[in-house]
C-alpha cells in the first residue's frame, strides 16, 4: 500500500456516510463549508443498506401477505404465495434508489465524496486507505472532523457471524428464501421486528431471551400487546435463557441455552439469528492518534454540541451513544455541522421519539408515568384504547392504546406511549407537543380529523384532564 500519495485539505471531514454522516455533510455544505465525506462501504450506512430500510421493506411485504391471508372476517379470501427472492429484489431496488439518492444529494450540495477507510493521523489530519491492492491512500487535512462510524452487531461467545448458519440481521435481510424454522437469540426490537416479519411469512420462530420478557425498557402493558400478537403468530418464547452454544446438524443447527441455574435446553432450526444488540464502531479509526478513548460502554463521549474532548473533532450517531437510532444520528449530524460552521447550535431537544415496527407497532416519546414521577412531577395520565376508536375498528386492528403523560399542575405534556396501528406515525404529534411545551389542553382543543387513529391522541389527553368523551374518565 502506498501511503500519502495524494493530500487534500477540507473544512470538514466526515467519516461514515450513514444517517449521521451524510446529513452532517450536507448540512455543513449548506453552511458554506468545504466538506469531504469518507465512506468505506455504502452510502446510507447501516440504516439504508442493512437496517431501517430493508427491515421495513420486508416487514411491509410480510404485512401485505399476512393481512391478505387473514381477512376472511372481512370477506376477503386469498391464499397469497410469496416469492421471497422477488421480495428481496424489490427491497434491493428500494435500497438502491435511496442510497443513490443520498449520493446525488451529497453531490448536489457540493460534498466531496471519497471512498475508503479513514483513520486519524493527528488532530487535523486523516489518512484514507482505498480498498483493493495498489489503490494507495490519501491524506486529508481538516479544520473539523465529524466521526459517524456507527455500530455493528454484538457477538456472543461461541457465535461467529462468519459461520454460515449464524446470521446477523444483515445476513437475514439478504435472505433469498424464508427459513422453515429459525432460532432467534434476543427479543430486543431488532429481534422482535424480524421474528414477527418471518412468522408472517410462514417461518416457525423460536425466540430465546436472557431477560424475562420482550423489549427491555418498555412498560409492561406495551410489551404485553406485542408479545401477545407474536404468540398468536406462532412465535415461541423462552425467557430467562441465554444462548451458550450451537452445533451444526444435517438439517441446520441446534442451539443450546442455559438458565441462570445452569439448566440447559436445546432448540433446533435451519439457522440461528443473533440479535442481542449493537456496539459502537471505534476500532476502525485509530482514535489513539488524537488521544481519544471510548468510554466504558465503548462510545465516544461528546458534549451538547456533539464535540469530543478534542476541539476539532465531533462524534455523532451510534458511535456517540444511546439511543442508537437513525434520527438521533441525523439530529446530532445537523448540530455538529452547524457548530463546525460556528453557529450556536445545541442538542437541546426535549426528547427522541422511538418506534418499534412490530405488530402492533410501538411509538414512544419523552417520559413514562414512572419516569415522570422519578423526575419529580406529579403525573396526570390519560389513555385511550384503540378498541374504542372508530378508525381502528374499520381497519380491523384495534389492539393497543395511546397513553399521554403530563404534569398535573401545569398540564405540560411530558411524554406518550402508543402501541397499535400506525403508532410510529402517531407519535409525531406527541413529539411536537413535548418539544413545544404544549399542554394537555392544547392537544385536546386541537380539532382532530374523524375518523382517524390520531383522534386517540386527543382522547387520551382529554382522559388525562377528566374530560374524555369516548372513554370513561378515571
Amino acid at each position, binding site marked *: 500500500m502506498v501511503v500519502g500519495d495524494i493530500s487534500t485539505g477540507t473544512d470538514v471531514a466526515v467519516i461514515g456516510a450513514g444517517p449521521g454522516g451524510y446529513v452532517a455533510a450536507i448540512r455543513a455544505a449548506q453552511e458554506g463549508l468545504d466538506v469531504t465525506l469518507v465512506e468505506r462501504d455504502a452510502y446510507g450506512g447501516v440504516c439504508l443498506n442493512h437496517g431501517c430500510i430493508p427491515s421495513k421493506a420486508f416487514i411491509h411485504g410480510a404485512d401485505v401477505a399476512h393481512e391478505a391471508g387473514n381477512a376472511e372476517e372481512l370477506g376477503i379470501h386469498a391464499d397469497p404465495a410469496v416469492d421471497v427472492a422477488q421480495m428481496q429484489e424489490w427491497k434491493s431496488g428500494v435500497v438502491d434508489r435511496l442510497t443513490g439518492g443520498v449520493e446525488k444529494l451529497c453531490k448536489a450540495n457540493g460534498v466531496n465524496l471519497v471512498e475508503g477507510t479513514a483513520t486519524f493521523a493527528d488532530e487535523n489530519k486523516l489518512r484514507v486507505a482505498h480498498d483493493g491492492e495498489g489503490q494507495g491512500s490519501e491524506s486529508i487535512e481538516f479544520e473539523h472532523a465529524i466521526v459517524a462510524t456507527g455500530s455493528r452487531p454484538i457477538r456472543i461467545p461461541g457465535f461467529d457471524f462468519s459461520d454460515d448458519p449464524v446470521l446477523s440481521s444483515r445476513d437475514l435481510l439478504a435472505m433469498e428464501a424464508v427459513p422453515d424454522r429459525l432460532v432467534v437469540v434476543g427479543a430486543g426490537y431488532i429481534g422482535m421486528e424480524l421474528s414477527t416479519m418471518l412468522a408472517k411469512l410462514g417461518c416457525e420462530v423460536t425466540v430465546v431471551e436472557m431477560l424475562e420478557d420482550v423489549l427491555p425498557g418498555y412498560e409492561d402493558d406495551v410489551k404485553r400487546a406485542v408479545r401477545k400478537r407474536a404468540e398468536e403468530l406462532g412465535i415461541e418464547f423462552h425467557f430467562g435463557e441465554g444462548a451458550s452454544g450451537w452445533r451444526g446438524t444435517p438439517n441446520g443447527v441446534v442451539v443450546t441455552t442455559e438458565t441462570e441455574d445452569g439448566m440447559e435446553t436445546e432448540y433446533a432450526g435451519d439457522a440461528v439469528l443473533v440479535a442481542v444488540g449493537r456496539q459502537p464502531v471505534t476500532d476502525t479509526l485509530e482514535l489513539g492518534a488524537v488521544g481519544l478513548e471510548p468510554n466504558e460502554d465503548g462510545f465516544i463521549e461528546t458534549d451538547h454540541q456533539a464535540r469530543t474532548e478534542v476541539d476539532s473533532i465531533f462524534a455523532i450517531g451510534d458511535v456517540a451513544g444511546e439511543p442508537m437510532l437513525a434520527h438521533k444520528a441525523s439530529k446530532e449530524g445537523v448540530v455538529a455541522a452547524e457548530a463546525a460552521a460556528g453557529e450556536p447550535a445545541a442538542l437541546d431537544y426535549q426528547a427522541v421519539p422511538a418506534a418499534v415496527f412490530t405488530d402492533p407497532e410501538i411509538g414512544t416519546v419523552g417520559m413514562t408515568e414512572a419516569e415522570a414521577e422519578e423526575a419529580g412531577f406529579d403525573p396526570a395520565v390519560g389513555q385511550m384504547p384503540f378498541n374504542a376508536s372508530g378508525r381502528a375498528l374499520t381497519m380491523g386492528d384495534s389492539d393497543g392504546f395511546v397513553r399521554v403523560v403530563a404534569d398535573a399542575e401545569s398540564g405540560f405534556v411530558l411524554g406518550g406511549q402508543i402501541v397499535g396501528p400506525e403508532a410510529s406515525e402517531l407519535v409525531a404529534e406527541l413529539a411536537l407537543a413535548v418539544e413545544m411545551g404544549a399542554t394537555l*389542553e*392544547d392537544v385536546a*382543543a386541537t380539532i382532530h380529523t374523524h375518523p382517524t387513529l390520531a383522534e386517540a391522541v386527543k382522547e387520551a389527553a382529554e382522559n388525562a384532564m377528566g374530560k374524555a368523551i369516548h372513554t370513561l374518565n378515571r
Partner: protein
Amino acid sequence: EPTEGRVFAPPSARRLARELGVDVAAVDGSGPGGRVTDADVRAHVESGGTADAADADAEAES
C-alpha cells in the same frame, strides 16, 4: 394590518384570555415570532390591559 384577526397563541392561552376577559389580540406576544403565551396574557392583565369580555368574545369569533 393585512393579517388582522389572526392571533398566534396556543389554545390554552386563548382560553385563559377568555377566562380573564382579555382580548387576546391586544396582548403583546413574547414567544417565537410573537406568539402569545399564558404569561403574556397574565402580564397584560396585571399591567391593566383590556379586561372586556365582550371584546374578547368578539375577537374569538374571527
